[in-house]
Structure formats: C-alpha cells, structure tokens
C-alpha cells in the first residue's frame, strides 16, 4: 500500500551475546540475533520467559549482564540517554495517571530528546508530531483527553508518541495486552506498515501467538531459555509447539491456533 512512499532503508538491530537479567542472574541464555529494517519481528514466549527483560535491556532501561547491542554501526550501550532516545523509542505497559493529558500532549512528549532548555516545540517538532499522529490514524484524537479514550485509542497515541521520537528502532512491550482480538491483528498490520514506510526494524513482544503468526513477519521465540528465530511461518511449523505446548493444549501449525488435546 505504501509502495509509492519514499523509502529510506534503515539499519538492522544486532544483539551479540546479550545476557539479560537481574543481579547477575541471567533469565535467558545469551542472545545473538538480528532484527531487519522494514520488518516486524515478534518476540514470543510464555509469560515470565524474559521477553520484557530482554526488551527493556535493548531499550537501555536496564543494564545488560554481558554482550553488545548495535543499531547499524552504532553501539547503543555506549550512548548517553538523550542520544539513545533519538535512536530508539519504546511503548511500555507502564500505567500512569492520565489526569489532564490530551492525545496531542502525549505525542508531543516524544519530542523531548530534541528540545532545548525552554522546551517549546519548533516547526520541525510539530511536523514530526503530526506525521506520528497520521501514521496511526489518530489525528482526531489530538485534542481528546486520554481519560476519555478506549484502550485501543490510548495505545495508538502511545505508539504515535514513540514515532514522534523519529526512532531508527521501535520497541513495543506487549502492546496488545488490553486489546480485543480484531484490534490485535490490526495493531500488527499498522506496525508492518510503519516498519515499511519508515524503513526501521520493529521488535514487538507478545504472548499472543495466534495474532503474531498471522500478522508478524519474523519471529524470535524463547523456548526453555533459548532463543530460536526465523520467519513466523517457519517458526509456526517448528518451535512454537515446543515452546508453548502444555499437557492439555497443543499448537496446530496448520491453522495457527491452539487446540485442546
């Protein structure tokens, strides 16, 4: 659909021997993977398997135990927070008091790493905010209070906020957790379009395997603390079952759904 848009080709996210965890306790075996520009990579794994920890570490919100994170040739771990905030943006699950915040205010906060001391928006900042709102079809939400929005609308605003940072890498932690089934598929479709238009890698953690396989492109699957990767079609035929099956439920690769045994 966006074939006519001028496409910049971005750079890939590369993790090399990245060990993540708390207090020297790794929650995963060291990860060496890459996420390609222009594509949505879904990070799959059962609850508590370390998806969020990995994502937060890549985002620079917690230090890695070992290993390296590169975006193209740039070492993300060596950057100061402000420089890093111009390279990557995140959508988190953190709840906050919405108070008097309006959609447009929240999206404008994404310009923070570009602002001077006074904190006022310049024309380039306003253009980035408008483009971010347009990318998620949320222009009409700019003047609405967050308190009056549905979960899906709020999620679009938070994605627009991340896009307003003009990131070269976008990370999302469980963005579909509060959405209904159609919205989950739609969300991934929106992310695919953004990845393609902006030419950036997008890494999305989710435990919603069915939506991920239908609408994702590449996948990283955490199976017993080990990372396996490939296209989602390939992963659906091979690793997903290993990672998610329980004695009562198994994954059916033929139509990408879980069935009772």
């Amino acid at each position: 659909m966006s074939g006519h848009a001028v496409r910049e080709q971005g750079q890939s996210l590369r993790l090399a021997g990245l060990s993540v965890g708390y207090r020297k306790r790794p929650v995963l075996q060291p990860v060496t993977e890459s996420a390609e520009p222009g594509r949505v990579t879904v990070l799959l794994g059962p609850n508590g398997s370390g998806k969020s920890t990995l994502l937060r570490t890549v985002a620079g919100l917690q230090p890695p135990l070992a290993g390296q994170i590169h975006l193209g040739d740039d070492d993300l771990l060596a950057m100061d927070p402000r420089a890093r905030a111009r390279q990557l943006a995140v959508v988190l699950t953190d709840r906050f008091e919405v108070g008097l915040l309006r959609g447009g205010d929240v999206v404008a906060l994404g310009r923070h790493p570009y602002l001077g001391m006074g904190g006022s928006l310049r024309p380039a900042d306003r253009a980035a905010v408008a483009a971010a709102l347009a990318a998620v079809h949320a222009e009409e939400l700019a003047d609405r209070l967050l308190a009056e929005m549905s979960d899906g609308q709020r999620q679009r605003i938070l994605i627009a906020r991340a896009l307003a940072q003009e990131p070269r890498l976008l990370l999302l932690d469980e963005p579909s957790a509060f959405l209904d089934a159609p919205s989950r598929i739609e969300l991934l479709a929106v992310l695919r379009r953004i990845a393609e238009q902006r030419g950036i890698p997008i890494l999305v953690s989710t435990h919603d395997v069915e939506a991920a396989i239908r609408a994702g492109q590449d996948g990283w699957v955490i199976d017993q603390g080990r990372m396996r990767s490939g296209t989602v079609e390939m992963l659906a035929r091979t690793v997903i079952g290993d990672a998610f099956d329980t004695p009562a439920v198994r994954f059916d690769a033929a139509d990408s759904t879980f069935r009772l045994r």
Partner: protein
Amino acid sequence: MNRPAVVLTAAVPVLLVTFILALSVGSEPVSLDSVWHWLTGRGAGDDAVLLVDFHLPRALTAIAAGAGLAVVGLLMQTLFANPLADPYILGVSSGASLGVAVSVLGTGSAAVSFTATFGALGRWGTVAAAGIGALLVLGLVLLAGRWVRTVVSLLVIGVMVGSAVGALVSLLLAFADPARVQKFVLWSLGSVDGTYLGDMVVLLPMVAVGLIAAVSIAPSLNALLLGERYAASMGVHVRRIRVVAIIATALVCGVVTAFCGPIAFLGIAVPHLARVLIGRADHRYLIPACAVLGAIVCLLCAVVATLPGADGVLPLNVVTAVIGAPVVVIVLLRSRALAAGQ
C-alpha cells in the same frame, strides 16, 4: 491567545489587588488611599512606618510562602506521581520544624519576637537547620516510596514520619523554657506576621532560587507524567531531575517553615486549582500558574486571618485548612485510582 496565557495574564492584576489589600489590613489598618499614595511614591506620612515595618514584610512573606509552597507541592505531586503529595502531608514541614526546634529551643537567647530568637545560630543557621530537617525527611519518604507502589501507602508513610518527627519536637519542648515553648507553639500554627523587612534578604532570594530550579526542569517533569521508565526512554536523566526537585523542595520548605511555621494545605490545594484553571498538564504553564495563584491565595489567607480586627491574628493554618481541606476531599473523590485504594 490560548487559555494558559489568558489565565496567567488575568492573574497578575488580581495579585496586585490582593497585594494592596494585604498592605492595607492589620491591627492598625492603613487606608487604601494611603497605600496607593505610598506605592506610587508620593509618601504616606505616619503610615509609611507602619507599612514598611509591618504590612510590607507581611505581604512579601505571604507572596514568597504561597508561591514557594504551591510550586514545591506541584513538584512533589509529579515526582511521587501522587495527586495528594505535598510538603506538609509527607512530613517535610515537620522535618523543617524539627530543624527550627533544635536551633531555637536548643540555644539560649531570650528575645521578644520569635524570628528574633534566631539565637546562637542566627537567621541563616535556623534556615539551614530547617532545610536540613526537610531534606532528611524527604530522603526518608523517598526511600520508603521506592518500596510502596500505591498512592495511599505513601501518604501513610509520610504521616507516620511526620508524627515521629513531631514526637521529637515534643521531646525538645518538654525540656525547654516555657516562655519559648509558648512562642514555638504559636509559630507552629503558621503565620506570615512574624517577619521584618531585613528577613526578606534571606526569604525572597531562596524562594526565587527554588522557583527557578523548578522552571528549569519543567520539560522533564512533563515527561515524568508518563512514569519514570517512559521518561528515561525519552532521554530524561531521572535521577538528576529528582535531585533538583528534592533540593528545591527542601530549600523552599525549609526557608518558608523557618519564617512562617509549617503551613498546611497550600502545597496540596493550589496545584489542583492551577490545573483546573489552566486545563493542561504542562509544567511550563503550571509552575508559573502555581506561583501566582499560591501568592494570591496566601495573601488572601493572610488578609482573612487579620480581619477579625482587635489585636491578635488568626493562625494562618486555620484559614488555609478551610480552603484546603475541601480541595483534598474533592481530589480524593474524583480520582479513580485513589478510590480503588491504589
């Protein structure tokens, strides 16, 4: 013109009117005519002495106390992500009181007025002691705040710390000279009447520094509205911002408490008033709005406290409570998170 600009522009003449009103009232009132004459540099005869020695220091103190407490109240509400946080509720004012108690009750001079009893340590010493007391309590509450996640439990911790510190003050009172204890108790009810013009060289600059510090971190405070992790992901040095906010709070709360006693409710109520009027959550507007509204409200409280005529004045906390307590209850009822006990 947008709404914040309209509100701020409209607030300035209101501030001027309340300032003139506050200059006029007192146990020995000065007519508004005389005040206007004096303000416009045409002298005020005998009234000039009254104005310079008593009414002007009181009005300036009210402006500094109101503006300062309202802005640091806003800082604490954002910093703790808690709409009911303020220096008084979280016990920071009690910490400042302890500092004052130690420096005043612990030393040996016996002057007439309370602020003149800035005994052995002097004016700066008492202010510094109050600031250190405020800083210690703030550090303690902040540390405890790392472990609790709910709005209400943080407030409970603040109240507990405040009570513990209050107990220490009572202990000091029990062993102090009764004449001084009486003055300390009066001071602890809150007042803007105890200052002299000379005190302004300490009070005004220190509050100004606190306000400038607050303005300087306004964009980062906006980012902090989404929580510390989001703020960090947008390049905010969260720890640095927290340190600036805490030092500004301790400074303002310390110096205001040293001169006026612990003043309740201004820090919690005025930021909510500012939010309602400004209609936005943007600290670049909220900080100046809190400063101006805080000054107006505190001037009005001082006027009301003086009105009963006669010789005495009402304790300031009596008046601030009448205005502030309903605001707290309204905020409590309107906040869904608080209603759910989170």
